[in-house]
């Protein structure tokens, strides 16, 4: 092989760089993937935004926060929706692949709602009781003032941000082995709707046709239902931010879209869809 000197190498490197830039095509459409909790809101945002911005093309899919963040790391999506914060291991992967720390955009607030069947005699539970129920330490409704019947647990898959958030903030341990995992919050609501002795958790926006359980911070605190007011004041004890993660600081169409989501118009849709605004 012909001997290269430093100058020739530098010229070659610049040429390679130019070739790379030539391959770098501007994104034709914005892809959004991730949290099932956020998916209905994200779809609404996309739908309304595309109506008013005819040139924009936004594709929204769910799959869970973990799936969305993985897709962001491997370049399969432009925006990852997440109902939890990005883990440090995920940030390390993003650094390794894209040399960025990612950009976190808090786009809505949510209260994790406890779903009970409409016929359930139980109306309120403390965070501690919920932890015991989902760890499998309380197994009969009788212990909570209900019928003498086994408690049926319904939850999300471990790729879900809601699963992770609920585990870290309420369960504080391993989920009971008999907790039935379901693909999506809608499936959890549906299961509880059909099961008199079922209990599940998920986003407030999905709570239809079931009884919403009031939650107490501890045994001596008053119980609150997840409402805009109780979430804003912090009285409802299981609240969280919902996030959009990007690889880089947004530019062009992406920036326009993110700015619109955080605008009064975008945040109004948050309320319309049953979530809570960030401000």
């Amino acid at each position, binding site marked *: *092989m012909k*001997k*290269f000197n*430093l100058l020739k*190498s530098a010229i*070659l*490197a610049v040429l*390679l*760089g130019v*070739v*790379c*830039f030539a*391959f*770098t*095509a501007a994104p034709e459409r914005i892809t959004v993937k991730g949290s099932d909790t956020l998916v209905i809101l994200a779809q609404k945002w996309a739908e309304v935004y595309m109506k008013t911005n005819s040139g924009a093309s936004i594709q929204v899919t769910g799959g869970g926060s973990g799936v969305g963040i993985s897709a962001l790391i*491997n*370049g*399969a999506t432009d925006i990852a929706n997440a109902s939890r914060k990005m883990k*440090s291991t995920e940030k390390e992967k993003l*650094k*390794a*692949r*894209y*040399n*960025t*720390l990612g*950009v976190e955009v808090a786009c809505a607030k949510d209260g994790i709602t406890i779903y009970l069947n409409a016929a359930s005699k139980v109306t309120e539970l403390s965070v501690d009781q919920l932890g015991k129920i989902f760890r499998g330490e309380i197994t009969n409704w009788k212990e909570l003032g209900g019928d003498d019947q086994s408690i049926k647990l319904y939850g999300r898959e471990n790729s879900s941000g809601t699963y992770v958030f609920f585990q870290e903030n309420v369960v504080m341990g*391993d989920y009971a082995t008999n907790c039935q995992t379901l693909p999506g919050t809608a499936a959890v609501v549906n299961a509880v709707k059909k099961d008199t002795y079922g209990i599940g958790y998920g986003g407030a926006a999905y709570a239809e046709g079931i009884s919403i359980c009031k939650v107490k911070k501890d045994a001596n605190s008053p119980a609150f239902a997840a409402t805009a007011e109780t979430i804003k004041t912090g009285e409802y004890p299981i609240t969280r931010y919902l996030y959009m993660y990007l*690889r*880089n*600081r947004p530019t062009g169409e992406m920036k326009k879209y993110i700015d619109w989501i955080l605008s009064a118009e975008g945040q109004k849709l948050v309320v319309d869809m049953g979530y809570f605004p960030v401000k």
Partner: protein
Amino acid sequence: MKKLKVFLFLVVSVMALNLSAQEQSQAEKISELNDKVNGLLERAATSESDLSKLTKIKVSGYIQAQYQNFESPALLAKSQNYFSLRRVRLKFTYEATDGVKFVLQPDFAPGSLSLKDAYVVVNDHWSKTFSLFVGKFNRPNYEVEYSSSQRELIERSLIIRSLYPGERAIGAKLEFNPSSAPIHMQLAVFNGNDGLTVTNNAGTNVNATDNIDYDNFKDVMARITYNLTLGNFGGLDFGAHGYFGAAKSNALKTLSGDYTTVSDIKFGDRVSRNWLGGEFQLFVDVLGGMSLKGEYLAGKNATIGYAPVAAAGSAAAIPGVANFQNNFAGGYLYLIKNLGKRNQLAFRYDFYDPNTDIKGGQVKVKGFTTTDAVTLANKMSGKGDLATSTFGFALHHYFDDNIRITACYEIVQNEKVGTTGLLTEDYVQANGVKVAKGLDYSKVVPANVFTLRIQAKF
């Protein structure tokens, strides 16, 4: 009329009987279906339980196939260009229970089947802050722990490859990763001689058994890093690590790194190997991701000699070789720029001076001359004392989530000796003709390498 009444009674009775039979039949059917559903639910629960066990096993891996062209004339007689499989790895991770993980990673590269990782990780359940690793795993160093499937230049820097041969070592490591602060600490204890060559008087490596220690001395490594977020600008990770170890002396003398002083040492005494390193990784969000990463290491390294063997019968005496303790320094600097979602350009400059106690111009000039050649062999500085610097650049194209194509060119420069012909090596041409003193270290000896690699990862 009476007949009609009897007839109607009979008809109603038959209908009632029929309805009752139908109800009974339907109840039986419902009961049968209920049993079937219950049976299916039971089977589904069993399947789910079996499946959940399988989900605890994760398999990942990658293959790196490459074509390389070497400039070195020393390879003329063999091959200066060839295809090869650099890494063929499968990684099995089994999460037995929450917080306990087993990892096994063999490498199936042709002709060199080896076990890369084999360790257990136990995470503490209470504070969720500490993790204990036991087995064979990467030594705590940034470039060592950075996955080969992600690395921006095709091989690690020369200094890292020299100080941490094979990257892994057998031992135990405690990691501290608090969730409340962006600080990470690692403290590891290793056998410490993993991958080192310790030759005896017959030229045999006495440290060839990978699985046990060569001596009783255990080496300690510590590393601490901090992740600083720089707002919208990016982030800076910085830290330091230290290696504090020793190897057992097999010789009765130790020679200083400048080849001037010999000191006495007992057989079995400690020969220290200590060094420190400082590192940083700067991530900047400028028109896509960009990073600047660097590390500098310096300290004292050692090679182990052997004791003299007295003449016995017809066997001649074998003079001993002194242990050698020298200072070294080296480091690397990467500049990496992502270009869109699929391309990445990387540059690296790395250098390694294995012996900072003498300069290139002093090689073969300074040397220890023994007063008793039967007991101790003379030792002259040479090729092993010369510094090497490498400038490499690579272009990566991510074809999809699994495939990465890399073109890499590395320009290798050796430190030059003072005088032409002072330090030379022979080499053999492709036609078998030997070129005496063909490689002259008073100039740059050709050693550049071009690599075209395809990596498939899953």
